[in-house]
Each structure stands twice: as C-alpha cells, then as structure tokens.
C-alpha cells in the first residue's frame, strides 16, 4: 500500500542532505564544544557555523540566537525568561496559541501574572482592536504566534509588534510553523523574540532556537554550566544544532520554488475536498495561511475516525478532535474560531510538505469522500438530506 505523509505541521522527515551533514558529529567530531582540545574546537566551530546559518535565515545576528531543545522550550524561555525578571504584572497572548505558549502563560498566571487572551475572528486572525485595548500600564510582553499550527492562519506580526512597542511592551512570536515555510525577517518584523523548532523544517527533533534581539534581557530557565551565553545551560546538542542550521539554510534557499508550489497544491486540494464532500467547512484564512495547510471540518462525523480510516488507506493526517489529541477537550483553536464543539470534533488537518506530489493529492481526493460517506452512514447524528 502506498504511504502518503500529509502531517508536516506535526513534524517533518529529516531531509537526507541534512542528515548527511549531521552524521560526522555523532562518531567522528563528537567533542564537547566547551573543551579546548581539537575535538572540542571542531565541535565549537560547527556550532558557530550553524548559529550563523540560523541567524542568516531570519536576518538576525549570530549572538541573538539561543539554541534550545525545541520550540516548546524556546517559548517557555521567552515568556518565563523575560517576565521573571519583573515583579508580576500583566502580559498578553493570542487565543489560538500553541500549548507551549498557552501553558507557560497559565503557569505564569499561577505565579501572580495577569494575562489576557486576545480573541480571533472566524478566520483565526487576531482582533487588532481588542489586542490594542488589552495593553495596560504594567503590560510587559505580548506573544502572538506567527502562523497557527492547526488552521494555518498567518498573523499581521509586524503590526502586532509595532503596537506592543508603542505600548511599551516587548513582542514575542512563536514562529515554529512559519520559519522555513514563509519568509521571516526579524528586522522587517521588528519582533524582540521569535521561536523556531528544527523538526518542523526538515531538521531533527530535539532542537530549537529562540531569537532574542540584542539588548533583550532574559533569565535562564535551565541553570548550570552557563552555555548559550548563560541563557541555556547543558552540553550543546551538536548534531542537532548542525542539522537545524543546515535545514534552515536549505529551506530558505528553496523557498522560492517550494512556497508557490505548495500554495497551488493546497488550494487545489481544498477546492477538491469542498467540491466533493457536502457539509464541509474550510478552516482558517482563505489567503493569509501557511503554504501547506489544508484544514477543514466535516459535519456529523468525528476527526479521529476519519484519521484512522485515512490511515488504513495510507494517508497520514491530523485532527483537532479531542480524541485524536489525547485530551478530552476539542481543540481550543477551532473553538476560538467560533465553531461549536461538535464541529470541532470533526476537524481534519492536512499539512503538505515539499516531498508531496500532485498525484498524492489526487489520491486523497479520491479516497476521502467514500470514507466520509461510510462514517456518516454510521453516525447517529447524520440524517441524509
């Protein structure tokens, strides 16, 4: 049976070219970059080179990049690391943030910080007016994600950063889904902090980075030997760092080709699904969305069961359904768009990646309608119109 991976928003395969560049750093150049002998110096040089690659990919300086173990840790470092320098006050996040920001915010809230969650409209775009009004005198930080992981909506980040600065707060954006997929330039955006994750851009898992603009003072959340300019202790994950640098370099270099191709495939797939299955709603913004994100909700049936049926046909996708996520709550992102819980349960996310082909989309569009029909036949909520 063919096997089609349509879940690139969850994670991506490591690009073989990236793996090639990582390989020497397991068994040959295995030194600890803190050591000054030959092995150590070679490892240090590799880390420095990767840091320069990551910095270049987002228009930052090498000293503005802090490597972490992933996007989640980078998000936590941004929020805790920045806010914990102050007495508890107020900060702002978007209503559709990833749990990495959402739960960090909740934990800060338990420590005495007030937090406002800014609503989004039906397309997932942040309510600019509500955002602007939420700032208070003691608002230290606003964090709004660059692009949503469930519905793909891209936020007006530059505008959000500008407003935060006007209000005297710093601005962080979780750009885990964006970096490598769409152009990201920290200078042009004017953000103070920005989160990246390796495994979302054809790099390895277990590596991420926080861009922290020169002058943005942070306290560490992991203490120890003082690595990463004292901001994140722990022996550097050298192959991971090398892989992330290489992956970003490749992603940015190939973006002029990849981005329009994925956008075309995305729009074609969305149109085909909406065309061939009744009672389907497209989720997220019609145009301001990630190149590979096709998200929709199917009435009367539940996400996990669609997902499993698709899986038995070889198509791997994801769902914002409560069942699929292992939690019992339907996706807070989909609820934030104004959909009901029942609809939220029926959501499906197809996230295309650069190895996907038009044939794979054709295949999906062929198998999907009968799956929906089969599940609807089984559903007590479905009364054929």
């Amino acid at each position, binding site marked *: 049976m063919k096997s089609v991976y349509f879940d690139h928003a969850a994670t991506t395969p490591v690009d073989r070219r990236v793996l090639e560049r990582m390989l020497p750093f397991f068994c040959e150049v295995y030194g600890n970059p803190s050591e000054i002998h030959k092995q150590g110096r070679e490892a240090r040089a590799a880390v420095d080179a990767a840091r320069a690659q990551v910095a270049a990919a987002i228009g930052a300086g090498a000293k503005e990049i802090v490597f972490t173990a992933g996007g989640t840790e980078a998000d936590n470092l941004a929020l805790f690391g920045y806010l914990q320098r102050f007495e508890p006050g107020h900060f702002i996040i978007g209503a559709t943030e990833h749990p990495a920001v959402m739960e960090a915010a909740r934990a800060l809230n338990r420590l005495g910080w007030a937090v406002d969650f800014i609503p989004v409209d039906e397309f997932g775009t942040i309510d600019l007016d509500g955002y602007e009004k939420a700032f208070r005198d003691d608002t230290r930080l606003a964090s709004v994600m660059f692009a949503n992981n469930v519905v793909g909506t891209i936020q007006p980040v530059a505008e959000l950063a500008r407003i935060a600065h006007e209000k005297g707060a710093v601005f962080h954006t979780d750009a885990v889904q964006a970096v490598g997929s769409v152009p990201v330039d920290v200078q042009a955006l004017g953000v103070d902090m920005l989160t990246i994750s390796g495994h979302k851009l054809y790099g390895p898992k277990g590596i991420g980075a926080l861009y922290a603009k020169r002058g943005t003072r942070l306290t560490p959340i992991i203490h120890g030997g003082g690595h990463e300019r004292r901001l994140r202790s722990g022996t550097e994950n050298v192959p991971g760092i090398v892989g992330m640098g290489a992956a970003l370099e490749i992603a940015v270099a190939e973006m002029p080709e990849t981005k329009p191709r994925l956008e075309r495939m995305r729009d074609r797939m969305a149109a085909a699904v909406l065309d061939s299955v009744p009672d389907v709603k497209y989720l997220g913004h019609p145009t301001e969305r990630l190149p590979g994100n096709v998200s929709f909700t199917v009435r009367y049936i539940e996400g996990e069961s669609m997902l499993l049926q698709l899986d038995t046909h070889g198509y791997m996708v994801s769902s914002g359904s409560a069942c699929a996520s292992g939690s*019992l709550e339907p996706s807070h992102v989909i609820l934030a768009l104004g959909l009901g819980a029942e609809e939220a349960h029926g959501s499906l996310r197809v996230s295309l990646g650069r190895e996907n082909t038009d044939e794979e989309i054709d295949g999906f569009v062929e198998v999907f309608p009968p799956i929906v029909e089969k599940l609807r036949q089984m559903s007590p*909520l479905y009364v054929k119109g």
Partner: protein
Amino acid sequence: MYTDLVMDHFSNPRNVGEIEDADGVGQIGNPVCGDVMRISIDVEDDHIADVKFKTFGCGAAVATSSMVTEMVKGKTLEEAADISNKAVAEALGGLPANKMHCSNLAADALHLAIQDYLVKSGREGEVEQILKALPKEHEHSSH
C-alpha cells in the same frame, strides 16, 4: 495505540445501522463530548434477537459499539445486562487509558436499550432487577 482487534472492529464494524421499529433503543453521550452511541435491539423470548448500532466518535467508540453488538447477540436480557463497559474493553484486548472513560460507553447504550424495551413492553417493574447498574445519562460529560 489500538489493538489489532480494535482496528478490525473499527475498520469493519459489525451490525451498523438502525433497526426499524426496534423493540428498544438506547443512546448515550452527546456531540459536545465527542461521542454519541445509539443501539437498537429486537427482543424475542427475552433474548436479543437483533442488534444494530450507530456511533459518532473516535476509533474506540466505534469499536466498542461494534464489539458489544457481537457479544450480545442471542444472549438473554439478563446476560446482556451483565456485560460491562470494562468487559467490552477487555474483549477488544484493552483500550488506551485515555479512551476508557468517554469512548467506552457502548455497554451503557445497550443497557439503555434494554431499559427502553422493558418500559415499552410494560415490564417497568423489572428494570431494577435486570439492570443492576443503570448508567446515569451523560455521566461522562463531567470528565
């Protein structure tokens, strides 16, 4: 995460559908929780002569529904009433921990169908005796 048997029941569910003019119908769950199961039965001589289900829900919800219909066919009402959600999960070779609560309610739906039959056929007095542990409606919505 799912056993092969769960996946088999999910992919090839047994006894899907609705019995027209069923002797008893039981439904549990609600769409907000993400699981709705409806089981309809025909009863002959105090035995389950036919049983069908419709389910909105995840793989576990579908598989437990399918399994319970298989387990119950031909059984007496009392035997059917003794089948627990836990027994259904066990018959499937187990369910992931996070599916044990909300998605494992097919036996409850069955019990509600039996209750419905007893009430409809004027045997309301026997409900408590046959159905020792009747599910509270939406008991899982508190999770």
